[in-house]
């Protein structure tokens, strides 16, 4: 079990470290010492140095920070550290399995990305969708992906890549 001290938190004026919270991150047990109300997004990025999960709005309006909590796509900017105690968190760095492989292969095959900044969140949302619905319709895709902004507007390719991934997965 790895214990990760908060980024420089021991150097704060108050000299206080946050509380310890333990959860599973990408299949590994991790303990983080940070304020329990810290958004999971910043715990992942600052304390655990996993920068694949992005900040876009901080207000559940863009989906750039999408991770999986117990297998479900959630906005990590809205989840506090205390809420993940003893739960499973998966980020873009650790997402695995047939669905993730199919999604990322389709993303690469169709050259979905432009700036790429939204794409960790898009991939995590797409994996979340395909985990629930194996053969999503366009409407299913609209519903699952509408919260994930892409300012480069790669939506057409995201949609095509989700269908492509679905095709390669067993029904």
């Amino acid at each position, binding site marked *: 079990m790895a214990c990760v001290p908060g980024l420089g938190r021991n150097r704060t004026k108050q000299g*206080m470290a*946050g509380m310890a919270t333990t959860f599973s991150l990408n299949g590994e047990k991790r303990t983080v010492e940070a304020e329990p109300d810290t958004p999971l997004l910043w715990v992942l990025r600052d304390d655990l140095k996993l920068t694949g999960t*992005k900040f876009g709005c901080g207000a559940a309006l863009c989906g750039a920070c999408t991770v999986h909590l117990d297998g479900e796509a959630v906005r990590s900017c809205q989840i506090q550290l205390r809420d993940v105690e003893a739960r499973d968190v998966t*980020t873009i760095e650790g997402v695995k399995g047939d669905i993730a492989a199919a999604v990322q292969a389709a993303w690469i095959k169709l050259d979905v*990305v432009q*700036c*790429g900044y939204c794409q960790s969140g898009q991939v995590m949302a797409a994996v979340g969708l395909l985990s629930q619905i194996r053969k999503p319709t366009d409407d299913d895709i609209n519903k699952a992906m509408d919260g994930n*902004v892409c300012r*480069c507007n790669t939506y*057409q390719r995201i949609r095509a890549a989700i269908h492509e991934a679905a095709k390669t997965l067993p029904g």
Partner: protein
Amino acid sequence: MTASTHSGVLTGIFTMTPADAAPEKLQSSRRTFLKLSGAGLVLGMAAPLPGMSGGAEAKAAEALAPNPFLVVAPDNTVTVIIKHLDKGQGAATGLATLVAEELDADWAQIKTEFAPADPVKYKNLAFGVQGVGGSTGLANSYEQYRLAGATAKAMIVAAAARKWSVKASDVKVSKGIVSSGDKSAKLGDLAVLAAAESIPDKPALKDPKDFVYIGKSFPRVDSKAKSTGATKFTIDQQTDDMLVATIVRPPLFGATVKTFDASEAEKINGVIKVLQIPQGVAVIATNTWGALQGQRAVKVTWDESKAEKRGTDEIVTAYKALLDKPGLPARKDGDVEAAFKTANKVISADFEFPYLAHAPLEPLDCVVKTDGKTAEIWTGSQMQTLDHGAACAVLGLKPEAVQLHTVWAGGSFGRRAIADSHFVREACEIAKAYGEPQPVKVMWTREDDIKGGWYRPVYVHRIKAGLDKDGNIVAWQHRIVGQSIIAGTPFESVMVKDAIDHSSVEGASNLPYGIANLTVELHTEKAGVPVLWWRSVGSTHTAHATEHMIDILAKEAGRDPVDFRLAMLSKHPRHAGVLKLAAEKAGWGSKLPDGKFRGVAVHESFKSYVAQIADVSLREDGTPKVERVVCAIDCGVAVNPDVVAAQMEGGIGYGLGAALKGAITMKEGRVEQSNFDGYDVLRMSEMPKVEVYIVPSAEAPTGVGEPGTPVVLPAVANALFSGTGVKTTVLPMTKQKYKGQS
């Protein structure tokens, strides 16, 4: 295929000073280097911040680097040095394609690295400084990067010929393999030998018919890293001792700090310093969450005496009053007033365009590390020369003491191409005021971004046109009122002529239609709102006003919109070419199902020609639903057709989002939007099906990042006009009611 951003490696290669390099080899490499670069800016070996590099280790000193654009290493990698920022438009892929083509490299051996800031080696040949914008990235580099590849290939061929004792003309290179008879070697195997060959003055470029990469769709260099979360953007730069800073920014444009109270902010865990800088009050913390909470906790009293206190309603009203008065002439053909007198029918329409934020998904950010004597900066720098100069000025350091590292950027759409380099400046101000050698990462929140200005300006237009009895346009008077984007920037001397800011009238003053009597006039107004180019700049508004007006006139004339345009485009075959192609592919003229409408528009921007045909219906609530957009583009040689298509798709989505719902409004000077709720953007469910067709061309390549954007608004508006009779004169489209009127 990998891509990394660690340009420190490159400065090492170019200056050839790694301590462990063998002296004799060093000499020959250095000679090779100096021969080409002359007395260009020579930077010291960058000391990469631990954990901040893109991962590439310094390559062996004995590599072939005959020019600043590529390195062929003995490990058989070909690293293409990308002089422009890649913010999603595919600069890295495009420039790498040009080198791979002429070098005959294998696509799998190509890597990319961003170039250091160096206006001598890496200037944009269209601007004279290092930077990219105006969709010039590939166009200005087309020959330069091909020559770079051809130079290296000629040297490798010469080395192979010498080694194998054969004639150079008997040496072939294909997919990274050099061969002659039964002898063969990889490009990298010959790199060291080739470095000792003399550099050819003018290596031959390929005949386009022999192209293996250009014109074919090779995969992007950055797809894998960006699909797996591995790409490091500025916000992802980290070191153990890095500090994070936010800035409390003025609530009104032009307000300044009077006093501030940091007592609450200082209580927040992680906050270590709150200090005043010219741009506001900076909160420095050991972690991002501390910096974000601290930003909210600082209490600032602002001096608003010099601030812009008008709302957007007042600004628009003031602008509209000017529509009745003649402006400065941007174009004058024939005698418009006389033509109006003889016209059979005179029609006039006014148009209003709101402020628009760019809202790249990665908010602005910049990392600065300085010990007071030297500095390093990491940011998604779109205008390296300006950003570097601004950093030197703020830090009081000489150019050679400051290194600027260009980092992958999470979008720009114009926002990072900022003449005053304010986001680099403020980061340097903070690092300087803080005075410690730790790196400081300054990040903007989404609220800072949406409320922070540098918008596409508000414009109002009036177009008055006269038709003769046969329905031909005989007079066209176009008046534009708005703020100048260029005034006060270093580009003013080039882009403002006779008090006309070209960027305010582009797309209008070069109207392609054959109209004998035509004027375009401009009123340049001042407002205290900072403004900036927004993807496709002047065309964001001129394309709509002109192309929507053409459909309004076509209807008056009882003519088909495509035929009406074609009849006036006899002198503009490239406009006509894309228009015909789009019409053919969209099935123009075929009958549409009930409730579906079709509209067309054609426009040239950044020397590329785009026509789009939009199929639109109305949702239950009467708002437009764009179902399909057929897009034809003529951009000269399409270096990578799939990247061209991606830029059209993305550009259409970007323009459509703004058309449907984009507006920044102000009340008493205060911006009313703050995040993606108030300033919503296009979403998955609103993205139309886009089909892109590229006109085959042998012309030099022209821009593709911007030209797709401005055309969709008039195409959709024209579809709605044909189906409902409602004109789209006030943007965004939420300002019109399209339902129940036909």
